C-alpha cells in the first residue's frame, strides 16, 4: 500500500495525537483521596440477604473455588391452618464466603434462585491476616446495605408479578386497617354513649397491647432450648403481649368485682362448680393452632378453656340470671377476642390472647359444632376471586375449600334454626 502523502506527514500526525491528549483531562482517578468512579454493577464484594436464603446450597455447590460455607438445621413449622400438615423449614446457622479463595466469578450470585446473593461495589476490605477475609453471615448481611438498587425497568416493561402482588396486598391491608379503625371509632362512641361504665372500661383496656418488647424469661428459656435467635425473639414477643393483656384484664375485672362485692354477697367461685374434663373447646384450639402453637399445647389449653366455659355456663344456670352483669363482663370480652380467620395469620400482637378465650357468641359456637362431609369440593366463587387477585393456584384451592365447608355449615345451621 503505497501512501501518497509526503514523507514526514505521519510523524507530524503522531505529534498531533499526543498533543491533543495534552489538553484533555487526565484519566487518572485520585483514588485514596476520592472515591473511584466505579460502574454500578462492579464486582466488589458479595452480599447476603439472609432472610431470602433457603439453604438450597446451590451457591456452595456451584462455587468453583468451594469458598462458600453453609451450615443449617431443620425446624418444624406447625401447619398454617386447621387440619394442615406440619412442615419442616431450613434455618441458616452459618453462611461464610472466604474472599481469600473467591475468584469473583459471580456464579453464586447468578445461580441463587431466591435473590439472596448480590454484588456490592465495595472493595475496601483488605486485611492483614488471610483468615479475616472469611466473611460470615453477619458481615455479609452488612454488605447488603451497600448493594445498589437494581437497574430500572425499560420503558413500557410489564411490572413483575411479585411486585404487583405486593402492591395489591399492601393496598388491601391498608383498606382493612381503615375499616378496622372505623369500627373501633364507632365502638368507642357507643361505649361513651352507653352508661355501662365498667363494661366499657374493661373492653377498652382489653386487647390493645403494643408489641415490640420481648418477654425475657421466655426468650432465655427458648435460647437455652437451642432455638434460633429469631424464633426465640418472635415467641418472646408474643409471650410479652399475652402477659400484658392478662395483666390488664386482671386489673379491670378486679376493679369491677370489688364494686359489686360491696353491694351484694360474693358470687359463687368458679372452682366450686365441678366439671368433668375431657372435651376440648374447638374454637380455642383452632385459634391456637392458627397462631402457630404446637398441637399438644393447643389441645391442653383448649381443654382448660372448655372446663372454664362449662363452669361459667353451670354457674349461670345456677344463678339463673341473678346477677347478669357479673357473667356479662367476660362474655363481652370474648366476643371481641374471637379470632377472625384472616387476622390469625398476622403478627402475634394482633392476634387475641387465646388463653383468655372464653365462651364465644352463640351462633359461632354452633357453627363450629356442625359437621360437614365432603372436603373435596371447592367454592368456585372464592376460587375465581382469589385467582383473579393473583394468588397461586394452591392457595386459592385450599381457601376455596375452606370457604365451601364454611358455607355448608352455615346452610345446615340455618336449616336447623328453621326447623
Amino acid at each position, binding site marked *: 500500500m503505497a501512501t501518497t502523502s509526503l514523507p514526514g506527514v505521519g*510523524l507530524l500526525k*503522531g*505529534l498531533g*495525537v*499526543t*498533543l491533543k*491528549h*495534552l489538553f*484533555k483531562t*487526565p*484519566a*487518572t482517578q*485520585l483514588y485514596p483521596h476520592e472515591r473511584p468512579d466505579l460502574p454500578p454493577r462492579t464486582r466488589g464484594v458479595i452480599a447476603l440477604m439472609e432472610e431470602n436464603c433457603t439453604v438450597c446450597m446451590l451457591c456452595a455447590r456451584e462455587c468453583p473455588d468451594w469458598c462458600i460455607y453453609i451450615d443449617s438445621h431443620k425446624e418444624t413449622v406447625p401447619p398454617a391452618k386447621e387440619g394442615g400438615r406440619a412442615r419442616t423449614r431450613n434455618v441458616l446457622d452459618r453462611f461464610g464466603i472466604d474472599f481469600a479463595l473467591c475468584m469473583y466469578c459471580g456464579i453464586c450470585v447468578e445461580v441463587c434462585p431466591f435473590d439472596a446473593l448480590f454484588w456490592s461495589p465495595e472493595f475496601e476490605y483488605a486485611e492483614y491476616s488471610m483468615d479475616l477475609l472469611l466473611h460470615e453471615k453477619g458481615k455479609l448481611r452488612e454488605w447488603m446495605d451497600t448493594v445498589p438498587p437494581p437497574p430500572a425497568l425499560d420503558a413500557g416493561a410489564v411490572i413483575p408479578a411479585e411486585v404487583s402482588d405486593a402492591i395489591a396486598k399492601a393496598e388491601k391491608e391498608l383498606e382493612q386497617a381503615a375499616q378496622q379503625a372505623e369500627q373501633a371509632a364507632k365502638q368507642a362512641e357507643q361505649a361513651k354513649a352507653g352508661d355501662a361504665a365498667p363494661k366499657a372500661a374493661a373492653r377498652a383496656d382489653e386487647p390493645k397491647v403494643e408489641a415490640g418488647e420481648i418477654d425475657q424469661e421466655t426468650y432465655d428459656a427458648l435460647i437455652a432450648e437451642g432455638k434460633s435467635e429469631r424464633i426465640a425473639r418472635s415467641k418472646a414477643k408474643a409471650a410479652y403481649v399475652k402477659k400484658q393483656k392478662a395483666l390488664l384484664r386482671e386489673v379491670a375485672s378486679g376493679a369491677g368485682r370489688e364494686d359489686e362485692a360491696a353491694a351484694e354477697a360474693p358470687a359463687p367461685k368458679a372452682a366450686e362448680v365441678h366439671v368433668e374434663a375431657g372435651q376440648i373447646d374447638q374454637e380455642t384450639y383452632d385459634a391456637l393452632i392458627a397462631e402457630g402453637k404446637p398441637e399438644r399445647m393447643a389441645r391442653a389449653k383448649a381443654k382448660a378453656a372448655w372446663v372454664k366455659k362449662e363452669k361459667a355456663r353451670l354457674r349461670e344456670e345456677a344463678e339463673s340470671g341473678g346477677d347478669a352483669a357479673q357473667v356479662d363482663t367476660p362474655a363481652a370480652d370474648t366476643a371481641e377476642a374471637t379470632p377472625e380467620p384472616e387476622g390469625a395469620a398476622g403478627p402475634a400482637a394482633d392476634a387475641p390472647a387465646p388463653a383468655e378465650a372464653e365462651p364465644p357468641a352463640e351462633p359461632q359456637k354452633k357453627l363450629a359444632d356442625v359437621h360437614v362431609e365432603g372436603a373435596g369440593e371447592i367454592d368456585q366463587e372464592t376460587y375465581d376471586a382469589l385467582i383473579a387477585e393473583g394468588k397461586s393456584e394452591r392457595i386459592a384451592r385450599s381457601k376455596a375449600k375452606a370457604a365451601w365447608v364454611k358455607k355448608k355449615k352455615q346452610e345446615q345451621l340455618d336449616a336447623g334454626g328453621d326447623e
Partner: protein
Amino acid sequence: MILDTVLTTSTAMVAQTAGLLDTDSFLVSMLLKVALVIGLFLSLPLIVGYMEHKAMARLQHRRGPMFAGPAGSLQLVADGIKFIQKEDVIPRAADKWVFAIAPGMALVPALLIFFVLPFGPGVWAADLELGLFYALAITSISVLGVMMGGWASANKFSLIGGLRAAGQLIAYELPLILAAIAVAVQAGSLSLVGIVESQATFMVAGTDINVWFVFPQILGFTIFFVAALAELSRPPFDMPIADSELVFGYMTEYTGLKFAMYLLTEYAGMVSMSALMVVLYLGGWQILPGVPLPGCEAGGGLFDCGVLGTLIGVGVVMGKILMLTFVMVWLRVAYPRLREDQLQRMSWLVLVPLSLVNLAVVAVAKVVF
C-alpha cells in the same frame, strides 16, 4: 586531550565582552561566576526534569507527580533523597576505580558547558572567543564516562549499551558540528555571545527585516536538533539504554548516587543543548526578532539592560530552553525507539550529507550576500 587543549587555549583567549559578574576584584567575580554556574547546574535540570514528568504525563493522559511539594514540584528532590539512601552496590567483577569514576566523568563536562552559555544580557560566566568550539568539545567528553561505565560494569548489557553509546555519539557528533559550523560561518564568530549579537543585526538580504538564524538555516536547525537528541540518548534515539533490550544499558549496574549522577547528566545535557540551540538559532535573549529587551535600546541594544531588562532577558532564555526541552519530551512520547542500524543509517546517509549541503549553501550565501 581535547579538554587540555581547550583549557590552555581558553586561558590565552581574551574575554570578548565583560559580563555582569565581571567586577574589579578577581576573587569576587570568580566566586559569583562559580555560584551562578553551580546554581544553574543544580536547579535547571530539576526544573526540566519536573517539566518532563508533568508534560509526559499529560501527553499520556495521566496526571504525573502530585504529592511531593505543591503539584508534585519537589518530586525530583524526593527522588534525590531516595537515591542518597540507596546502597552503593559495586559488582564483584567490576573494575572498581573506573566504575566509580565513570559517572563523574560523564557529569563534569555537562557542568563545564554552563561556563560559556549566556543565559541573558550579561549573565554568563565567561564569553570565550572560541565558545562554540569549547562547548562542542566538552560535550563530546561525556561519552567517555558512558563508555567507562559500560566497560567497568563487567555486564554484557552494560557493555553493549556503552558500545552503542560510543557508536551513536561518534555518528551524530559529525552532523551536530557541521550544523554548528554553518552558524559560525554565518555569524562570523565562534563566541556564543557574538553569535547572539550577530543575530540581532542579521537582516533578510535586501531588506531591513531582522530574523534569527533559524529562518535561513531551518535545515541546519533541524539537523542540530535531531543530532542533539541522539547525543543525549533521548528517545527515540535511546538505544544505549533501550530498557526492553538491554535492561538499562550502561546504567544497569549503577545504584544510588552514581545512578543519580548519570540521570543528572542527561537532564543537564538537555538544558545545555537547548541553551546552545537558543544561542545559535533562536536569537538568545531577544523576545522576538527585531524586538529588543526593555532598557536595552541604549547600550548597544543587547547588553547593559538594567535590572528589569536583564531579568526579562533571563526569563526569555529560560522560556526558550523550556520550550525546546518540551519538544524533546513531546518527541519522546510520540515516537517509538529506532533500531540500531536505522540510527546509524540515518546519521551517515541522511544527516551528514544534508549538513554538508547546508554548510556549502550557507558559505556560498555568506559570500554572495
